[in-house]
């Protein structure tokens, strides 16, 4: 009986502890992310990243590692800073007047804001796929060949052909376009255009592929093809995807990061985030209780 009472006391106490833990969640402190932000041998290691657009503090003290050969999904309501953070990773925010980035972002241990860092090189190593497919107004072949050519990756036409072939094949597009390489990229369907953009990105041998809602303009079948492709591509690259579809985040990623009003609230294994999130805000967002 005494043993039983002890067990009950422990039970109540643990319930109380959990309640206290929940109560302590507010107010949010910048840089206090729930979950493990560290991974072994990260490709990107970001600490205390702040972004300002003029006076506006867009993201606050974001710290997270990005692992190799895995997909990191970033979710959160509009304006939460997930795209802003994504754009930090290949210094796309440099192109926005008034934008200022602070903190440390290391790619393979080297600061991407180093004065010696060539931004064009950086964007080849860290490629990006956008929400709306944006092929160049050129042929399918030229869309893929353009990057390798300006980066001098091919010695001659045969090598360039090889790169184009290989990239289109990896992007799962080769069979559909091999007989029409000279046609304009814009003649393809939306899903094909998006895969063409992925082929264009991987043609320059990136290490990381950033995707900003890559499927939001696509139908479910084209979406499924891109998701399937992501699973294949992660064998060779690290992928960071921003998505508004929680089901997509759950399907494609190994880790998930939840942003809220400029703060990185929670990071964790995707398996856990969607069944057992730790932070109430994450819970509220993924269960559709606000946002």
């Amino acid at each position, binding site marked *: 009986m005494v043993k039983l009472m002890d067990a009950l006391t422990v*039970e*109540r106490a643990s319930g109380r502890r959990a309640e206290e833990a929940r109560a302590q*969640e507010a107010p949010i402190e910048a840089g206090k992310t729930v979950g493990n932000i560290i991974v072994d041998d990260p490709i990107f290691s970001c600490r205390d990243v702040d972004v300002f657009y003029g006076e506006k503090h867009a993201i606050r003290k974001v710290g997270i590692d990005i692992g190799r050969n895995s997909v990191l999904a970033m979710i959160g309501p509009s304006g939460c800073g997930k795209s802003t953070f994504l754009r930090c990773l290949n210094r796309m925010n440099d192109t926005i007047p008034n934008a200022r980035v602070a903190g440390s972002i290391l790619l393979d241990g080297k600061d991407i804001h180093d004065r010696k860092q060539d931004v064009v090189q950086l964007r080849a190593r860290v490629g990006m796929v956008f929400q709306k497919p944006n092929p160049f107004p050129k042929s399918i072949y030229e869309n893929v060949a353009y990057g390798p050519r300006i980066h001098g990756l091919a010695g001659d036409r045969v090598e360039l052909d090889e790169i184009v072939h290989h990239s289109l094949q990896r992007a799962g597009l080769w069979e559909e376009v091999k007989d029409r390489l000279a046609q304009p990229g814009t003649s393809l369907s939306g899903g094909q255009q998006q895969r063409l953009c992925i082929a264009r990105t991987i043609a320059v041998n990136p290490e990381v592929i950033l995707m900003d809602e890559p499927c939001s303009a696509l139908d479910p079948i084209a979406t499924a093809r891109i998701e399937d492709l992501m699973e294949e591509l992660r064998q060779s690259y690290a992928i960071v995807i921003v998505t508004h579809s929680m089901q997509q985040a759950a399907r494609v990623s190994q880790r998930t990061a939840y942003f809220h009003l400029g703060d990185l609230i929670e990071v964790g294994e995707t398996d856990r985030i969607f069944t057992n999130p730790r932070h109430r805000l994450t819970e509220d967002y993924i269960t*559709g209780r606000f946002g």
Partner: protein
Amino acid sequence: MALSLEGHTTRAFDGDLSSLHLQAVAMGALVIEQVQLAVNAYSSWDRSIATLVLEREREINLYDAEIEAAALQLIARRQPMAQDLRAVFAIDKVVTELERAADEAKKLALAVLAESDASGFRPGAASAREARALGRVAAAMIRAALEAFDRLEPGAAASVVQQDEEMDAEYANALRRLLTHAMEDPRRLQATIEAAFIMRSLERIGDHARNIARHVRFIGGLDGAPTRVWPTSSSRADPTERDVL
């Protein structure tokens, strides 16, 4: 900023979850009544009550099928996540436990209707006291488990565990007494064995209640914190408080 807003942005989702929750609680209330009725039928060896138990069993099975179908629909249409997903998953399991508890209660009614003992000796007469004692604990355990399910308080589930200890003690007592009866008069052996099976059924109802408590904890998640997954809690007008007998 408001930390926790009540309910889903999609209000129809609240309606779906709420209806699942209320249906499960209503089914639970029916099962409690069923246990009490079955014990009554058995201990007073009343064929008319036993027949009533069998009729109500169909109603319970219907609840089981309806709730399962509704849970499946909710998963397909809403793709619940996190606490919602755990809750729907748990509801399905809770309902299965309730249905099995009702199956055990049915066995008491079937024993009464079978009248298998040729010598005219009724197992119910030999073990009415034991059946009432075990039945009382079993019904109380289901009620406590349902309250825990309804209010989603992690502490509430603990009381079910406590009652399970009581159940074990009552069960051991009952078997001991039945054994004594059998030794006194070997002609009672068949009836005693039948009665022992009945005691076992009642004890199993307690096990189902304990499993329900486990599923309630699962809804709470890793840290076992109180959740507020039910959009409307029926705890104020407690449907399990109805008195049938």
